């Protein structure tokens, strides 16, 4: 999931444009990471060394790894180690941006190092699915530290992004959240999550064309009109995600919560008495908004 937040960082820093990022997210499923990007990420080679080897390779018929070892930039053990590991998704995104000529190796190296130091992450932190590190990135990204319900919001959002990747697709970029006191979307599916201490309202909102596309992804069916089936599909995504959230809360913290049946609201202003957070997620097919609020 680091790819999505790395993408968001590149966008917010002005290193890539939104169309470049959207294209890379779309293209990355066909990308294979190459030794240069892997070596830069591991700190085994600099971008300058990688560029140099690429130039050498254009004149001789040898593999990149062999040239790098001959030049003494890297050992053959390091090459084997890099090539044997499953590449992380943020590296695949980086490789795609390099392949698409959006970033040079040097720009990729700088952006990656800046991102890691900005978030105080090491390379091993970013490999695998380290929930504590993800939660920290998410808390920093949404600036929700210090809020009285910060812990729950962070847990909720971390699980949301995992579920989006699992059930809808990984081609999205998390966008900056905003505090709202009302919302008016073409389509809104909402569900109350009740606990002993507080009742919360969760919602998925978007324009109709995005709503249909979201339902298509989750149902794995071809859909063309926003009918009851599309409502039921988006509603079931929210129900599934909220369900997994309250099961985790029950198992990990012994907190018992319940869900209410979903409600559907179309093109109508919904007012929030207490501050609500609107978390936009930009998919390649359009932006989906997730709203969280206490009731």
């Amino acid at each position: 999931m680091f790819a999505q937040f790395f993408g968001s960082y590149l966008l917010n820093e002005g290193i890539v444009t939104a169309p470049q990022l959207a294209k890379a997210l779309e293209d990355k499923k066909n990308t294979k990471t190459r030794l240069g990007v892997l070596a830069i990420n591991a700190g085994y080679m600099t971008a300058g060394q990688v560029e140099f080897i690429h130039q050498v390779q254009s004149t001789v018929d040898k593999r990149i790894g062999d040239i790098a070892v001959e030049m003494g930039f890297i050992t053959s053990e390091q090459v084997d180690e890099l090539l044997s590991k499953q590449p992380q998704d943020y590296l695949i995104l980086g490789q795609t941006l390099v392949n698409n000529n959006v970033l040079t190796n040097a720009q990729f190296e700088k952006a990656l190092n800046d991102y890691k130091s900005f978030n105080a992450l090491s390379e091993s932190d970013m490999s695998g699915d380290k929930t504590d590190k993800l939660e920290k990135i998410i808390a920093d990204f949404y600036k929700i530290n210090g809020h009285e319900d910060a812990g729950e919001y962070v847990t909720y959002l971390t699980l949301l992004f995992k579920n989006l990747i699992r059930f809808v697709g990984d081609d999205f970029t998390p966008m900056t959240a905003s505090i709202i006191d009302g919302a008016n979307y073409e389509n809104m599916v909402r569900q109350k999550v009740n606990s002993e201490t507080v009742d919360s309202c969760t919602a998925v909102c978007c324009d109709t064309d995005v709503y249909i596309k979201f339902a298509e992804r989750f149902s794995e069916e071809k859909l063309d009109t926003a009918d009851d089936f599309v409502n039921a599909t988006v509603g079931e995504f929210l129900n599934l995600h909220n369900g997994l959230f309250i099961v985790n809360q029950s198992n990990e913290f012994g907190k018992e919560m319940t869900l209410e049946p979903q409600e559907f609201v179309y093109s109508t202003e919904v007012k929030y008495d207490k501050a609500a957070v609107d978390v936009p997620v930009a998919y390649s097919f359009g932006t989906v908004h997730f709203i969280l609020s206490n009731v």
Partner: protein
Amino acid sequence: MTINEVTVMVCDDSMFARKKLTNYILSLGVKACYEAEDGEKAVDNYKEYKPNIVFMDIVMPKKTGIDAVKEIIGFDPDAKIVMASSVGTQNHLKDAINAGAFEFLQKPISNEQVQKLIETVAEGE
């Protein structure tokens, strides 16, 4: 009983969830698969069709899945009911077992789990 003699009922307020589960169950070659969109309809349909196995959601309008299980078990103590819900919290698990459900599936439900349960019920009948 062979699998093509088994009758099943799927209760879920989500048309999407019902369709997905029903389509898979029908693909196994069962005799019939009935549907219900809320707890009330689930009780009515059970009384009418007496299916061999029921898959029951919990969060539903009109009557929750837990209340529907209690009523069905009151009517037929041998009813085979599987909770198939997104909310497998410890309280819900307890409530479901106390109500008389014999198994609890947390959504997302895998097809293999569903097939196994239908086969188990078929063997037992």
